[in-house]
C-alpha cells in the first residue's frame, strides 16, 4: 500500500465511519424527513449506493444540505438499488442519488423511460417518492473494452461484438439481471456471448489483467481514461437516458428541497467524470472533491449565509483524515464486528438449542422447523439483508436479525443430529433407572450431544463473522465498511483493511472454540 493510497483510505474510511458512529449513537431516532419545518435543525439522512459516483454525489448532497443549515446523517455504501429504494420508501433515508433510467425500469418496471413529469407523477402515486431537479448529466450504461483490443478487432459499435463470439464478457451482477441490462442488449444486437458476473469495481482490473475483454461501465466512470477504455457506440439507442437526480421521499421538507434543487443542472458529464477521477485516480477524499465543487460553482443554497460556510468548514475539518488513528479505527470496527457476529450468534444459540431439543422430541412436528431453517440458509446474504429493510429499516438491527437467521440452521441441525446420535441403550437405561425426562436431557442427552452441538455453534460463529462483513451494505458498520468502500473504489488496500482483520477474527474464533471444547468436553468424547 503506497502512501497516497493510505491517505485516501483514511479519508474514505473516515467519511464512512464518521457517518456510522453518530448514526448508531442516535439509535432509533425517527426525527428525520418528517420533522416539522419549525424544528431548528432537522436531520436529513442521505444514502448512497456503493460505487464511487454514488458516494460522491451523496457527499455533495450532504454538504449542500449542511450549507443550508441542516444536520445530515450519512448512510452511504448501501448495497444496490433495491436496498436504497427500500430504505427510502420506508423512511430510513430521505434522499439518495438515483438515475431516471433506473427509476423507470428497475424500480417502476416500465418498458420505456417517460418524461420527467410523468415519471414523477408515477413515483408520487405509487411510492410517495419524488425526483428533484436533475443534476445535469446523463450517466448511461455503456459497453466498454480496452482501446487496444477494440482497435485490433476494429470494433467501434456494440453491434460489432456480434462478429466475435469468443470475446469474454464480464458484467456487473446488477447489469446482468436488469431488464434494461444484458438480456435486452443481447437481443437488440444479437450478441452471442455468455457473460460472467463480476463485481463492478473489479471489472476494470479484470480488463487490464486480460481476464475479460468486454464489460459494462457507467459513462461517467473516472476509470475510463485511466484504463484507456473505448466506449462502444450504442447505434441502436438501446440504453435509456440515465439522468442523475436526487430521489427523495415526498414529505422531505422545503428547506432540504431548496438546497438540493440548488444543484440542478450544475454538474455536466465532463465535470462528473473529472470528479470521479479525482477520487479514483488522484486519491482525494469524497469530502474534499465535493467541497471543491460546491466552492468552485459558488453554490450556496437559499437560507444559508455565506458566513456559515466557515463554521461548516471547520466542522468538516474536525472529522478530517488523520484524526482517528489506524489502531483506534481498527479497534472500533472490530468491536462492532464482534458485537454484530456474536450478539446474533448468542441469540441464535439461545433459540436453536431449545428448538432443536423440541424438534428432536416431537419428530413429526419438528421436521418443518428444520426445512424452514434450511430454506433460510439458501437466501443469498445480500438478498436477506435487503428483505430486512422494509421490516426493520437499515443499520444494526436488521443486520443482527439477518445474522441471527443465518446462525440458526447450523446450531439447530447439529443439535438435532447430536441428540439423534445418543446411544439408545444409554438413553433407555437413563429412563429405566428413574430419571425424569428433564433429568435425562440435562444429565445424559445434552452432555453427550455437547461436542456436536458445540461444532454447530462453531460453524455458526465463523459463518456469522463472514456474513457480518456484508452488514456494511445496510449501514451496520463493522469490518465490512472498508471492504464495501474498497470495492467501490477498486482499492485493494482498503479491502484488505477489512478482510484481514475479519479473517484473523475467524481464526481467533476457531481457537477460542478449541479451548472451549477442551474445557467443556472430556478428552475421550472429543472427536
Amino acid at each position, binding site marked *: 500500500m503506497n502512501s497516497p493510497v493510505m491517505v485516501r483510505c483514511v479519508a474514505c474510511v473516515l467519511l464512512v465511519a464518521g457517518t456510522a458512529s453518530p448514526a448508531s449513537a442516535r439509535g432509533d431516532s425517527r426525527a428525520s424527513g418528517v420533522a416539522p419545518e419549525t424544528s431548528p435543525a432537522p436531520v436529513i439522512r442521505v444514502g448512497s449506493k456503493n460505487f464511487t459516483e454514488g458516494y460522491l454525489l451523496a457527499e455533495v448532497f450532504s454538504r449542500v444540505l449542511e450549507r443550508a443549515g441542516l444536520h445530515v446523517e450519512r448512510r452511504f455504501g448501501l448495497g444496490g438499488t433495491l436496498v436504497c429504494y427500500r430504505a427510502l420508501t420506508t423512511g430510513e433515508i430521505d434522499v439518495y442519488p438515483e438515475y431516471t433510467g433506473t427509476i423507470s425500469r428497475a424500480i417502476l418496471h416500465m418498458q420505456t423511460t417517460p418524461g420527467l413529469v410523468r415519471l414523477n407523477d408515477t413515483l408520487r402515486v405509487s411510492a410517495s417518492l419524488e425526483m428533484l431537479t436533475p443534476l445535469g448529466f446523463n450517466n448511461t450504461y455503456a459497453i466498454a473494452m480496452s482501446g487496444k483490443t477494440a482497435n485490433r478487432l476494429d470494433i467501434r459499435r456494440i453491434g460489432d461484438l456480434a462478429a466475435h463470439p469468443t470475446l469474454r464478457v464480464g458484467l456487473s451482477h446488477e447489469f446482468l439481471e436488469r431488464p434494461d441490462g444484458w438480456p435486452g442488449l443481447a437481443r437488440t444486437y444479437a450478441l452471442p456471448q455468455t457473460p460472467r458476473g463480476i463485481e463492478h469495481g473489479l471489472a476494470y482490473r479484470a480488463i487490464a489483467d486480460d481476464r475479460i475483454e468486454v464489460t459494462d461501465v457507467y459513462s461517467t466512470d473516472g476509470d475510463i481514461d485511466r484504463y484507456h477504455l473505448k466506449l462502444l457506440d450504442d447505434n441502436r439507442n438501446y440504453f435509456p437516458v440515465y439522468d442523475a437526480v436526487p430521489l427523495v421521499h415526498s414529505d422531505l421538507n422545503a428547506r432540504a428541497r431548496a438546497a438540493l434543487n440548488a444543484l440542478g443542472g450544475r454538474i455536466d458529464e465532463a465535470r462528473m467524470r473529472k470528479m470521479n477521477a479525482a477520487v479514483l485516480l488522484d486519491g482525494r477524499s469524497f469530502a474534499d472533491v465535493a467541497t471543491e465543487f460546491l466552492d468552485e460553482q459558488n453554490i450556496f443554497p437559499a437560507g444559508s449565509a455565506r458566513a456559515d460556510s466557515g463554521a461548516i468548514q471547520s466542522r468538516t475539518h474536525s472529522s478530517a483524515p488523520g484524526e482517528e488513528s489506524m489502531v483506534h479505527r481498527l479497534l472500533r470496527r472490530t468491536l462492532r464486528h464482534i458485537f454484530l457476529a456474536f450478539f446474533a450468534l448468542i441469540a441464535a444459540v439461545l433459540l436453536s438449542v431449545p428448538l432443536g431439543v423440541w424438534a428432536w422430541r416431537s419428530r413429526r412436528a419438528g421436521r418443518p422447523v428444520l426445512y424452514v431453517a434450511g430454506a433460510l440458509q439458501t437466501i443469498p446474504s445480500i438478498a436477506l439483508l435487503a428483505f430486512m429493510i422494509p421490516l426493520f429499516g437499515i443499520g444494526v438491527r436488521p443486520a443482527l436479525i439477518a445474522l441471527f437467521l443465518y446462525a440458526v440452521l447450523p446450531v439447530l441441525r447439529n443439535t438435532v443430529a447430536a441428540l439423534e446420535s445418543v446411544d439408545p441403550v444409554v438413553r433407555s437405561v437413563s429412563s429405566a433407572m*428413574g*430419571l425424569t425426562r428433564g433429568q435425562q436431557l440435562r444429565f445424559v442427552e445434552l452432555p453427550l450431544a455437547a461436542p456436536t452441538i458445540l461444532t454447530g455453534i462453531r460453524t455458526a460463529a465463523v459463518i456469522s463473522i463472514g456474513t457480518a462483513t456484508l452488514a456494511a451494505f445496510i449501514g451496520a458498520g463493522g469490518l465490512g465498511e472498508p471492504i464495501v468502500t474498497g470495492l467501490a473504489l477498486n482499492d485493494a488496500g482498503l479491502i484488505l483493511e477489512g478482510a484481514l482483520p475479519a479473517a484473523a477474527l475467524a481464526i481467533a474464533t476457531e481457537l477460542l472454540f478449541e479451548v472451549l471444547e477442551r474445557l467443556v468436553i472430556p478428552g475421550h468424547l472429543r472427536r
Partner: protein
Amino acid sequence: MSVLELEAVCVQYGSRVALDHISVAFAPGVTTAVVGRSGSGKSTLLECFNGMVRPGRGNVRVFGAPIDYAHLPQLRRRLGYAVQGTGLFPHLSIESNIGLLARLERWPADRIRRRVQELLDLVELRRTVCARYPYELSGGEQQRAGLCRAMMLDPPVLLLDEPFGALDPITRGEIHSEFVRVQNAGKRTIVLVTHDLREAALLARRILVLDAGTVIQHGDTGEVIASPASPFVARLVGSQLGDVR
C-alpha cells in the same frame, strides 16, 4: 404377598406377540431367573415392571399396587436396573455414574461417597476406579459398576437384564460370586433375565421358563431341573446342563 405381579398380561409389537396372557407373581426376597430362547419375551416381561413396556391388556402390580404411569421415575428408583452392555454413561466418571440417582435425590456428598465405596467393596472393585471413565474399565469391571449403580439407592427390587451376558466365562465366574454377596447383603427381590440355565441354576432360587410369550414352567430351581414340565424344558435343561444331571 408378592412384590411383582403380572395378571393376564398381553404385549404386542406390531403383529408379533411378545407376551401372551401371562400371569406370574414373584415373592419378596427371592431371586428368580427368567430363562428362555431369544425372543421368548424375557426382557419384555422384565420391562413391564418398571413401565418401560406398557401392556396392551392385563394388570401389572408392583409392591402390591397397579403401576402409576404418570409417576414412573419415583417407582423406577425403587427398582434397581442393570442391562447387558451396562449402559454406563460415557461422559460421567464411575463415581458419578453410580452416584447419579443419589445426587438427584439430594443426598449429601459425603453420604454419596461412603455409599459408592461400600458398593465398590461389595463387588470387589478397586476404589481407584471412582475417577475413571467407563471406557477405561474392563468389561467385567463395567458390569460390576453397573450393578453398583442399580443398587445405589438400596432398592428393594433389582431388575437385571442379562447383566453378565457379554462377559467371558472366567470373568463371569468371578462376578457370580460377587453377585451372591449382593444377594446376601440385603433381602432383595431379584429378577434375573438370562439365556444361560447354568447361571440360573447357580444364582436363582426359582426359575421361570418362557417360550413364545407364555409361561412353560415356574418353580423352584431344583424342581425345574429335576422334573421338566414339558419336552421343551427338558431339551433346554438337557442341552445346557447335561453334565449336571
